[in-house]
């Protein structure tokens, strides 16, 4: 007993003499412990899988998927591989996330600013919108748009026709497909125009600095954006025709053929994600604008700036730095929430890959790992971009 006590005391003494060892020893022990656990679990899993005769590894990605996907941005049919199916799912996830992020941002800014309006009707409307949609479960909202709204659309024969070129029915929304001749000229024209507008804006800034002359940058940019492409269209024989969707009856079932179809699942999911997330962004925007001291606007007014200039030069640059970090979180949430797609069978990465592909191949560990890493990558990419943007607008403090 006294021997053991002696040892412990000596060890104690050693630790207090070597603070670095005292600091790192417990952490090193923890890491070793974690490795042992992970090693045990993966050994256990692989020996279990081997005992049941289940293959492991990623070779399945090159095998024939033999299932169809209802909606795909790239060509896909059942003779293609699981790897291709993964890509289809990934693109569908990215598609709905990008649509959602764009619309959530626009709608969010609109309602955030509207809620600050001095008009009680406008601000009341915005409050009502935000408080309602923010407090209802997202899954329920997806169901609402999918089952309660889009299911009420008429059958294909009685399609709702909007503006003579949009056809809405229970199977989705059909719009004309663009048929271009000499499209590449047009694209080059657009690229050139954008380039030209950037140069023009730089020139206008320099002109302002050098001569104090203020050109109407925005109006001229819009003008250029109309004039140059029109010129390209007229000179290089670029033309655009619309291939309208046509109602065809095949074996008693009528459907629209041709044109571009947007499936109701995508519409419902994009609607629900945009509206739900927009309420949170609206609150961020409101907080950002309210977060700016009243004195800032007064000081700006006192040196003669107009209301528009105050908004552009003083309020928005400062509000952005408050708005961006929590809005990044909302973009991440939206992207991850898009996996609720599975509930209405929109073929996103979870439904296609972690659903159908997993059921068919049984490669649970591989597929779940790939899907997790995919979401992680998407999230990190969004974060990196938003952090970069945030740095651009950040303040220099003490």
């Amino acid at each position, binding site marked *: 007993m006294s021997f053991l006590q002696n040892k412990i005391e000596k060890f104690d003494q050693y630790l207090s003499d070597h603070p670095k060892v005292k600091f790192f020893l417990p952490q090193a022990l923890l890491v070793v412990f974690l490795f042992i656990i992970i090693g045990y679990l993966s050994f256990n899993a692989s020996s279990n899988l081997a005992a049941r005769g289940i293959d492991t590894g990623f070779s399945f990605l090159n095998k024939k998927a033999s299932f169809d996907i209802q909606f795909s941005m790239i060509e896909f049919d059942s003779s293609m591989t699981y790897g291709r199916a993964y890509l289809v799912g990934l693109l569908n996830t990215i598609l709905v996330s990008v649509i959602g992020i764009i619309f959530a941002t626009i709608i969010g800014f609109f309602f955030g600013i509207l809620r600050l309006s001095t008009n009680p009707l406008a601000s009341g409307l915005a409050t009502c919108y935000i408080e309602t949609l923010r407090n209802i479960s997202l899954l329920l909202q997806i169901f609402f748009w999918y089952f309660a709204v889009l299911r009420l659309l008429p059958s294909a024969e009685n399609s709702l026709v909007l503006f003579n070129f949009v056809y809405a029915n229970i199977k989705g929304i059909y719009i004309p497909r663009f048929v271009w001749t000499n499209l590449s000229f047009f694209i080059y024209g657009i690229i050139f125009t954008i380039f030209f507008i950037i140069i023009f804006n730089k020139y206008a800034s320099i002109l302002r600095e050098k001569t104090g002359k203020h050109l109407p940058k925005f109006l001229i940019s819009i003008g250029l954006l109309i004039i140059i492409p029109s010129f390209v269209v007229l000179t290089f024989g670029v033309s655009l025709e619309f291939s309208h969707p046509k109602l065809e009856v095949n074996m008693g079932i009528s459907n629209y053929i041709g044109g571009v179809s947007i499936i109701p699942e995508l519409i419902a999911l994009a609607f629900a994600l945009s509206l739900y997330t927009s309420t949170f962004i609206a609150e961020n925007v409101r907080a950002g604008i309210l977060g700016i001291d009243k*004195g800032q606007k007064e*000081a700006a007014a*006192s040196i*003669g*700036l107009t209301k528009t200039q105050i908004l552009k030069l003083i309020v928005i640059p400062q509000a952005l730095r408050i708005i961006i970090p929590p809005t990044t979180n909302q973009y991440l949430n939206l992207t991850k929430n898009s996996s609720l797609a599975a509930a209405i069978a929109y073929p996103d990465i979870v439904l296609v890959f972690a659903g159908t592909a997993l059921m068919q191949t049984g490669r649970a560990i591989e597929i779940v790992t790939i899907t997790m890493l995919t979401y992680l990558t998407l999230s990190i990419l969004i974060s990196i971009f938003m952090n970069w943007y945030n740095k651009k607008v950040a303040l*220099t*403090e003490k």
Partner: protein
Amino acid sequence: MENIIQLRSVNKWFGEFHVLKDINFSVSEKEKVVICGPSGSGKSTLIRCINRLEEHQKGSIIVDGMTLDENTKNISAIRSEVGMVFQQFNLFPHLSILENCTLAQIWVKKKTKNESEKLAMDYLRKVQIDDQALKFPGQLSGGQQQRAAIARALCMEPKIMLFDEPTSALDPEMIKEVLDVMVDLAKGGMTMCVVTHEMGFAKEVADRVVFMDEGNIVEEKKTSDFFENPENERTKLFLSQIL
């Protein structure tokens, strides 16, 4: 002498609260007026009405021949002739000190960047912070920030300068550096309206002192008379508390 600021029976309410009661007040060119009084007496509101950061509801305000009303053109014309310095400095934190000073020159007066920077540096030198020009407001001390705010207002080359308790938010050791700048400005012949409790400054610089209480101008006298022979009881009480 011509009155550059002329208020005739100006009334203002914040909701039910009658903050300015029938104020008649004028300032002639190059005159320096100090406005003092207990808090809530309406002195800040009074000078904020002069560049229409507050709207008055009754009476008329004429600044440099222009009547303050709904007319937006008038307001911006008046604002570029009336500089204002705030208690909380209100520098723009996302812009450097130099950019704070050039912003309105570029966007309101449509000057070139070079011209506006040159003028800004002149005024920054005058308030002795030209060496801080490229720093941001958050990197400066309170006294330096307030001097930068004065330079920012001067860059518009105003005819009139309004000061709304410019030293109230400062640490005691920084008050003097700001007051020195204001004294210099006064000696340069600027028309000034200063809301302050710095009676030393009033004695040194002011031509006239106005005492306000509960929305009224209670007493208005030449500086020496004001301090030596105050008539109103409330003025006497106030002076005894503050001196």
